[in-house]
């Protein structure tokens, strides 16, 4: 029997690794991957609890919504990263510190 606690612990681990990637990496694409990892951890929780909601399917459907939102976010974020690279010639988040040149 796989308990809910197991799922929650795995998802907490994934979330914290994502947090570490977001905080420590000096590369916008890897920061984006860290955010995706955190979203995945949240989805895992939604799905694990959704097992106990067969009639309304709440957990699974909102996991689907959040996967869709992640796709939209990634498309926009990549477009922004490419633009930033064109303008600053770097995608290190620490070095992007002026609004307009």
């Amino acid at each position, binding site marked *: *029997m*796989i308990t809910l606690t197991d799922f929650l612990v795995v998802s907490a681990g994934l979330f914290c690794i994502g947090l570490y990637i977001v*905080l420590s990496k000096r590369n916008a694409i890897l920061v984006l991957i860290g955010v995706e990892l955190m979203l995945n951890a949240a989805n895992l929780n939604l*799905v694990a609890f959704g097992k106990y909601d067969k009639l309304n399917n709440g957990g699974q459907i909102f996991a689907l919504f959040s996967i869709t939102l992640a796709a939209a976010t990634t498309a926009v974020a*990549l*477009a922004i990263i490419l633009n930033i690279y064109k303008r600053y010639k770097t995608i290190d988040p620490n070095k992007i510190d002026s609004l307009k040149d």
Partner: protein
Amino acid sequence: MTMAQALFYLMAFIALASALFVAASRNLVRSVFMFFVTLMAVAGLYVLSLADFVAITQIVIYVGGILVLIIFAFMLSGKEMLANLQLQSGKFISVSKVPAFLLATLFFIVMLNIIMESNVDNLPWLHNAVVQKNTFTAGDATIGNIGVDLMTTYLLPFEAISILLMMALVGAAHLSRKEKKA
């Protein structure tokens, strides 16, 4: 230990180990490809939680869409950007990364404490769901039910999210267009 439990621990180990590799690797391309493995393992965890449709969606959208988009974005955007991206400093834990590492570890400890304290397996509504047979069991056909729910109970969020998705994609196409030489 049953088969499902063994598979769960295997999937959980693969997911966490490959996520750690993403965090530790110095090579950007390697860590993006390792992220594939993480997403696949998370899809496996979805299956073990009896959410097969979400697992398939995860593979189709995340692995087939998002990751390919990320790889395309930096492989197609010129050699010098890729060369710049390869330069990542240092070891897994260097002095500049200690605060991030501390914060992540402490946050993990706090979350573990909360999970252990809250005792999620004995929540009243979960017991109610088990008594009323409102839980998924292995072998249920779930996809038809999800489709009906999407078109009835969750119609408004479904439509809102489809409009949002369209706006985001139009916006992304607008942002990444070539500048006209005026």
